[in-house]
């Protein structure tokens, strides 16, 4: 028993597998690029299936693409197939029929056709409820175009299916259901023991039938008596399914209105009203599947065990000859057959793994509206481990998911709590929703997105079309047809929604992570990107963004000089300016530089910081390359950045966080950032001093108050002025006494020693003019003094805002 899962033990996983059709050799698409493999097309299309939720449909959980065009589909599998049940009573049949129709109606509404109905794909649970299975096969293979095998069971397929190759409408399912139910009612297999060709002939000969199909079938199978004994209303129903001419055949939706189901419909209405209030916090199937995988579950292994994936040694299939044009001869291969068997996998491994977790763990208590009673005591041990390990810890993830689910249900009221939790970590399963919460996305985003025109051609289409097939194409999701289409829609929508901005290359990479996380929720992806850009990249997408980028890169240089003067000096000496490498970094918030899995971890933290955080991320990257940079000249640096080496992203995140907390906000303040709440007192620097890091009076006062030991104040005024009144503990180095050309800190005399030994402190320079401050700052930086900045407005500003801290030094 496992109390925490709150489940009925009937819930199992079902695994099936098939091969996608491989393209004939060396074909190119209309855009001149190689064709997308069909397995990827299927993978992209099938993502939509995972969003379908209905009580009469088995939930799709995962689609896995493995080597050599194989697709593995994982779906919920509860109960046993209808084909295992015999002698069903009329009432049971009616109930099954009714629920099948409910399921079919639901997928029809979503634009799907089952096309694969058979007694094997109708699952009956213990309490006699129906779950349709495998309803997505026809959809995900693009009406069977992407696979080479036929979909559907010959016996149950409608005759018109065989006559043409076109995609079928919803009415083929009515026919199949009619055949299946007819079989149930006649209590025997129709045309049992008949060979395939004969079976096909029998189905097709029905088109010339004089009598009703049902009667004819009953006659052919010698059970006319059973047929005649059936109530008229049932026969009438079957007849409305088994109509040769589709125009006379009813759709599942119409069938549901049949008099047969009157009582069911009424009952359902009543129970729906009753059920509205008792929603149970049971763990959803996708969570269970996710945890099951963490607990060591591997569907491919299960399929192998059952012989569905036969591992034929590859050397036995090597072909004999490959001619120049790519044509292959003498291939010894026999894979590719469709095997419809389903491997049923119970969730035992997971149950064992979580068996000691108490029932109550499912209900983390929300305190004071937004505060959550932490499960710290349960997860403390794990929370110290590295992120990568935490993400693979079944139990830890269980707690985290439960917690986040609860919080997300309460969003947006619980936003603060979500932010607090996000500082710890974000479980991959809920990342899409958590990011949206961090970006403050709320309201009817669905409708907002629908209102934007994404189809009317515009002049940026061409560029978008060129960029999309180059954007994170190693990802199966983003390289699929569905991925391309959605990314295009998102980009067009954003351009349309922001008429004051233009499409700059890079927007595609920027959108990619959001699409990746919200693949089946374009509206949310759109809302996220719409919130993300103003927060971090305000004005970057202006038609003329040079001023914004200039300022940004200027700040970046300052940040480097502030935290790593040695590196800054070197880069300056070889004239390797950020313009040469950092524009794509910041314009795409690094999503152009890193693969998606690293972006996810980086942005997890990025989203918690403000718009200055990226500067420190950039610096953290530089610091990982520090050694090579310091020993490289201009050309080597260019080469190094043209193909950035592997970066340890966890370290990068850690470093940037650490530096972020050590950087006063005013150092990285930009006049082009969106958040101008602290900018009221901002004084523009004097011309020619823009390159110097500056700290605001407010930040300076904060530092003095809260961490005095971490501030070194340098007063540049002459002795007399200094003696009159200065910040307590400040060092007086009169500017006139400094030999700027002599870049040795010791030349300043013994009282400059704290500067030379500076490790963790911020050096604030107070003077009268920005000009002198800038020169002196530059001097200190070239002497490799850490964290040098000058006080904004100098001594005058200080005197006018906080005269009380200026005291005579003696």
């Amino acid at each position: 028993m496992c109390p925490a899962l709150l489940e009925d033990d009937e819930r199992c996983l079902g695994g099936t597998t098939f091969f996608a059709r491989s393209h004939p050799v060396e074909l190119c698409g209309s855009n001149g690029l190689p064709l997308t493999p069909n397995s990827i097309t299927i993978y992209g299309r099938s993502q939509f299936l995972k969003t379908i939720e209905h009580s009469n449909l088995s939930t799709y959980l995962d689609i896995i693409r493995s080597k050599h065009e194989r697709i593995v589909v994982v779906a919920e599998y509860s109960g046993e197939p209808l084909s295992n049940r015999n002698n069903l009573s009329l009432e049971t049949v009616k109930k099954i029929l009714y629920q099948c129709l409910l399921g079919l109606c639901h997928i029809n509404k979503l634009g799907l056709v089952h096309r694969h109905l058979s007694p094997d794909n109708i699952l009956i649970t213990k309490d006699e409820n129906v779950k349709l299975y495998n309803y997505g096969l026809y959809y995900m293979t693009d009406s069977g175009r992407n696979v080479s095998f036929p979909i559907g069971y010959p016996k149950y397929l409608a005759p018109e299916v065989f006559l043409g190759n076109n995609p079928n409408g919803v009415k083929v399912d009515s026919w199949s259901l009619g055949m299946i139910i007819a079989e149930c009612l006649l209590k025997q297999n129709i045309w049992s023991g008949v060979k395939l060709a004969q079976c096909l002939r029998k189905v097709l000969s029905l088109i010339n039938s004089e009598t009703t199909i049902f009667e004819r079938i009953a006659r052919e199978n010698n059970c006319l008596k059973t047929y005649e004994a059936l109530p008229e209303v049932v026969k009438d129903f079957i007849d409305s399914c088994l109509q040769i001419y589709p125009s006379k055949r009813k759709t599942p939706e119409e069938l549901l209105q049949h008099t047969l189901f009157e009582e069911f419909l009424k009952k359902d209405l009543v129970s729906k009203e009753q059920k509205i209030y008792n929603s149970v916090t049971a763990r959803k199937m996708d969570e269970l599947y996710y945890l099951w995988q963490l607990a060591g579950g591997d569907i491919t292994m299960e399929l192998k065990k059952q012989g569905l994936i036969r591992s034929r040694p590859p050397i036995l299939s090597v072909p004999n000859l490959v001619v120049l044009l790519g044509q292959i001869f003498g291939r010894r291969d026999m894979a590719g057959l469709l095997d419809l068997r389903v491997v049923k996998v119970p969730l035992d491994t997971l149950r064992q793994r979580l068996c000691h977790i108490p029932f109550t763990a499912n209900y983390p208590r929300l305190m004071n509206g937004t505060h959550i009673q932490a499960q710290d005591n349960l997860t403390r041990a794990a929370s110290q481990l590295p992120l990568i390990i935490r993400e693979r810890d079944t139990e830890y993830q269980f707690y985290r998911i439960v917690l986040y689910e609860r919080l997300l249900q309460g969003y947006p009221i619980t936003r603060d709590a979500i932010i607090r939790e996000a500082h710890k970590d974000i479980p991959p399963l809920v990342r899409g929703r958590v990011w949206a919460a961090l970006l403050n996305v709320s309201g009817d985003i669905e409708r907002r997105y629908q209102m934007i025109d994404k189809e009317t051609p515009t002049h940026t289409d061409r560029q978008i079309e060129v960029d999309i097939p180059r954007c994170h194409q190693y990802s199966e999701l983003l390289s699929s047809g569905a991925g391309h289409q959605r990314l295009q829609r998102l980009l067009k929508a954003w351009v349309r929604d922001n008429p004051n901005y233009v499409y700059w290359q890079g927007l595609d990479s920027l959108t990619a992570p959001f699409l990746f996380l919200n693949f089946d929720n374009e509206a949310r992806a759109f809302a996220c990107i719409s919130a993300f850009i103003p927060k971090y990249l305000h004005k970057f997408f202006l038609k003329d963004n040079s001023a914004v980028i200039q300022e940004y890169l200027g700040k970046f240089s300052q940040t480097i000089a502030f935290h790593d003067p040695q590196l800054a000096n070197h880069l300056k000496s070889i004239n390797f300016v950020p313009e040469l490498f950092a524009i794509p970094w910041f314009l795409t918030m690094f999503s152009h530089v890193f693969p998606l899995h690293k972006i996810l971890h980086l942005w997890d933290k990025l989203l918690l910081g403000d718009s200055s955080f990226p500067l420190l991320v950039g610096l953290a990257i530089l610091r990982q390359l520090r050694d090579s940079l310091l020993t490289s000249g201009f050309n080597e640096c260019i080469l190094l950045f043209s193909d950035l080496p592997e970066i340890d992203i966890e370290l990068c995140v850690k470093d940037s966080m650490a530096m972020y907390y050590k950087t006063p906000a005013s150092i990285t303040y930009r006049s082009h950032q969106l958040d101008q709440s602290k900018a009221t007192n901002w004084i523009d620097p004097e011309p020619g001093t823009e390159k110097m890091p500056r700290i605001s009076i407010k930040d300076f006062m904060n530092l003095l108050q809260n961490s005095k030991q971490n501030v070194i104040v340098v007063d540049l005024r002459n002795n007399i002025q200094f003696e009159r009144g200065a910040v307590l503990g400040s060092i007086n180095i009169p500017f006139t006494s400094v030999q700027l050309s002599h870049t040795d800190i010791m030349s300043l005399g013994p009282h400059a020693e704290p500067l030379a030994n500076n490790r963790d402190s911020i050096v604030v320079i107070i003077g009268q003019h920005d000009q002198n401050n800038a020169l002196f700052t530059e001097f200190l930086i070239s002497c490799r003094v850490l964290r040098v900045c000058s006080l904004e407005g100098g001594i005058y500003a200080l005197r006018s805002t906080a005269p009380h801290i200026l005291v005579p030094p003696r």
Partner: protein
Amino acid sequence: MGEERIERVFKFKFPTCTTGQDYELEIPLKIPHDGCIKELTHRLISAFKLPCYVEDDLQKALEIAVKRWTLEFHDDRSERLIKAAQSGDLDVDEVIKNWEKLYKEKTTAYAEPIGTTDEELFAAAYHRLVHSPSLETILQAEHEFGRAVTEVVRMRDTEFEKLTQKQTDEVKVAVETLEAGSTERSINEMLGRHFEEQSLLQGHWGSRVDALKLEQRRQYRNWIMRLLEEQQTSMLPTPVNSPIVQMPPLRATLGDFGDRNDKGAADFPQLEESFTIHLGSQMKQMHNIRIMTGDVFDFCKTKHGDSGMDPTPQRLQTALGLYSNDLCGLVLLTDNHVASYSGITKELCSICQMTTEFHFPSFDEQLEKLRDDVKDVVTWRQAHQREGSDPQAKKSTGSKSLQIGDVFITRHSNLAQVHVIFHMVVQDSLRSGEINSRHPAILGLRNILKTACSNDVTTLTIPVLLVHEMSGDMTVAWCTKRAELVFKCVKGFMIEMASWGGAELKNLQFLVPKGMSEEVFGTLATMLPSIFRVSNPLVFKATDTLQTPKK
């Protein structure tokens, strides 16, 4: 997709507030419609500047219309088909035949049940055994078997040498005494006799070798199956004895034969350099790359060390990998004769014949099968090139053999370090001429990489200059240029490979002919990391204040 669509005109009427008049819209729609109706509604509202109060009505009307039309569309199409079938316009028998074929060929439910083949059974057994304590015994047995054959082959060769020597002497004597004693006729007779002797000896030894191999193969395969059985039933930690004891004792004669193949191996220093590279712009894939000098057959020859008693470690690796998903491949440049009587193929053939091929058909048999396939290729090519009317392609159509860039593939279990050999057809012109990236040999290389990718060949050795031996006219400039081209093209193919959905190439070896000077080798070796970007190692230091502690 060229999917069939029909166009319908959607009409929508609504009253305007001010004038009381009805406002009418006509919108052409494609059925089946595959966009979102809600979005369509909004697009219409903004395009026609409709008042917002029509939104709900318009959307509902659109939904209903699209749904109805879609149903009609499918109904119409199906009914047309049904009527065609009823009237006989559509041949129902043909339809049935096609579907039957489709079901039988593509689904297990209707296909002929395929059991596990002998090949697969043996493969499974072998793979299992080499990954068990029996490994050593098996290798030992293979080694012994191999030595037995090698001995016989060497005895054959010595006999032949002796005979040839004897005959040459005889002829010499006869020619010298042409005046005194022997006549032209008698010499001719003697030559005829010599030829007969030769063929007799050849026949004798040929059958002896074949018989030995056949017998070995039979014994070996039976023994493997027995071994598996016993291991499964008794869980013995040590395997049953190898069948070697039953072999005819040939060892006694061994001492006479020195290892003739080993001479010359040490003439040139072995040069070698390895790199680890990362390919890909965002997602980086790691590969090992090695450049080395050597003879292409070094990868094939099983070295029987001085003692000759123990199998070499390479054999162990090869045996473990034989039925795994990590195969080793080698690119061999050859002429367009798929036969073992001449050229490099002959040399390879003699190496293959030194020991028994226990797993696959013998090299000769594989070549024979290939010659059949070549016929298919010729017909395919003729059929294929008629379509594309490229005059240059047409010119070569007449050829009845393989062409430059074509690749034939053989499989081996008894070579030192390779399982699969890609024989790429090249011409002599490749030795000296200039080539570009569109050259058939480069395209052939791409096909090889692609085949390797889809067949789990993860270690591949490529002769980097596309020749196997150094020659006088290969200048330094030529070598660098050729190597650069091959490096760059292979890099491109490897990047492309990531999207082929097969196995990634883990180890790539570039082979440079023996005898290349160290300087040229050095040039090529330095070119490698600049073309394939070598991954920079991450260096962690604890000296900085901000850095986290060392891991």
